[in-house]
């Protein structure tokens, strides 16, 4: 069964059409990486999956629930979708452990002790248990992003969305975050990842989607899309990303 099904998705900001008819699916347990130049609409696509952006037209179906149906309880649906942002977006007024507890308590109505136990389990998973009582401002970017991943995981999502999770990080901090994501993929999490990390996409993704100018240009296994791209636009993009000096 597919976790995500997107049909003929269009999104415009004013007169600017960012997504021009997207069709694609993510099968349960798959890791799909979306690559493409900036402005290609890949982040908008991701944000349409949990309706942070309201699609202009088209259907978004997650686990059989049509999110684009106006009658659907979007808050209930979002609980099953973890989202990790480029800018981490941790809550700066709460400690790390409270960051991970607050939605569990307020949204899932878990008891405080249970929420804390789950928070600590997930912190351990991302290797930051010793930072439980720190505030986000006391952490490095890479640590903040790993806490953000733990925060999303604590809600027991069936799908994790990553919006350029390493783009705001210093190069030496990228590896830790990618390591956590790689572990997640090995554990069988369904993941949709917008990224510029080609090595990660090649190694971890089951499928790579190349987007340009609001359409999907190429969609297939990484050996094909990155290793042997069929379209000139894909080849041109990969040339610039993989050999930026040329």
């Amino acid at each position: 069964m597919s976790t995500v099904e997107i049909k003929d998705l269009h999104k415009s900001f004013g007169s600017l059409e960012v997504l021009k008819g997207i069709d694609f699916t993510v099968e349960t347990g798959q890791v799909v990486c979306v690559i493409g130049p900036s402005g290609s609409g890949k982040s908008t696509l991701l944000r349409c999956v949990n309706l942070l952006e309201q699609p202009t037209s088209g259907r978004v179906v997650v686990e059989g629930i049509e999110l684009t149906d106006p009658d659907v309880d979007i808050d209930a649906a979002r609980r099953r979708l973890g989202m990790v942002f480029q800018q981490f977006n941790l809550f700066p007024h709460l400690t790390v452990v409270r960051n991970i507890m607050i939605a569990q308590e307020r949204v899932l109505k878990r008891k405080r002790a249970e929420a804390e136990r789950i928070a600590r389990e997930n912190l351990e998973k991302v290797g930051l248990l010793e930072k439980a009582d720190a505030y986000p401002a006391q952490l490095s970017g890479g640590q903040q992003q790993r806490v953000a991943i733990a925060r999303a995981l604590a809600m027991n999502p069936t799908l994790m969305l990553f919006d350029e999770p390493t783009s705001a990080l210093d190069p030496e901090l990228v590896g830790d975050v990618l390591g956590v994501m790689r572990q997640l993929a090995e554990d069988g999490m369904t993941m949709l990842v917008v990224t510029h990390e080609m090595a990660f996409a090649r190694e971890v993704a089951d499928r790579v989607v190349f987007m340009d100018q609001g359409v999907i240009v190429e969609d297939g296994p990484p050996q094909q899309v990155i290793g042997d791209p069929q379209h000139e636009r894909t080849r041109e993009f990969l040339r610039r990303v993989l050999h930026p000096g040329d």
Partner: protein
Amino acid sequence: MNSVSEQEAALPAKGGLSPRKRQQIGRGAQYAVLVVVVVALVAIADWEQIRQNFLNGDVAAKGLPDLFTVALKNTVIYTVCGYLLGFVLGLPLALMRLSQVAPYRWIATGYIEIFRGLPALVIFLMIINLPIAFPGFEVPGEVYGQAALGLGLVSAAYMAETFRAGLQAVPKGQMEAARSLGMPHLRAMVSIIIPQAVRIVIPPLTNQLVLLFKDSSLVLFLGLTAGQVELAKFGNDQASTYASPTPIFVAGVTYLLITIPLGYVARRLEARQGAGR
């Protein structure tokens, strides 16, 4: 502008004077003006009269301990009550101002424009006349209630604008993160956005407290009994009793005892916040 003056500084001096020399002369002129004004004031002032009238220790002593136990105490009560009411009204007004529902925005905007545009004194005079419009109506708590109402209505308008700025200063990603965790809009506001906004506006709200502390002197227009008297009226009453302006001077100093440390605290909070971001 900076780069222009730097460029000029790098050029050879025009008219024989280097920019540094001109700066020195300008500063010297400012000192000269200062000295002239101070000397003139010292020469004109009647120091003996000032000492006898404004710094009369005997008269000042007669105001104790009521200066603190009655007057300052009442000033603090009026201020704090007005401030709390302003806070309780101001936050919802700010939320209404940012609401998706247009009539809420209109109401909040109208309120803010009116109560920021009116002198606090006019509002106190209106409160006195409220029973004409609503026969039999009395503000609960007598003068204390009226004072809290008057000061609260005014400060709510200012606080609403402060809160609005604070709410808008919370990054958009915070709401997105909260919503993506499944929080409904209201829950995200209460648990995530408002706590951050309140932290952001603590320094300006402290300044607001200083302003309100001074505005509390307008309470005297409500007609105060001896037990309800606040600093400004206390000073004025004593001044006429003892035919000396010393009590007014003393009241002024008492205001400063509160306002200067509070202002200092606000600046410290501001600096700390600036460093933390």
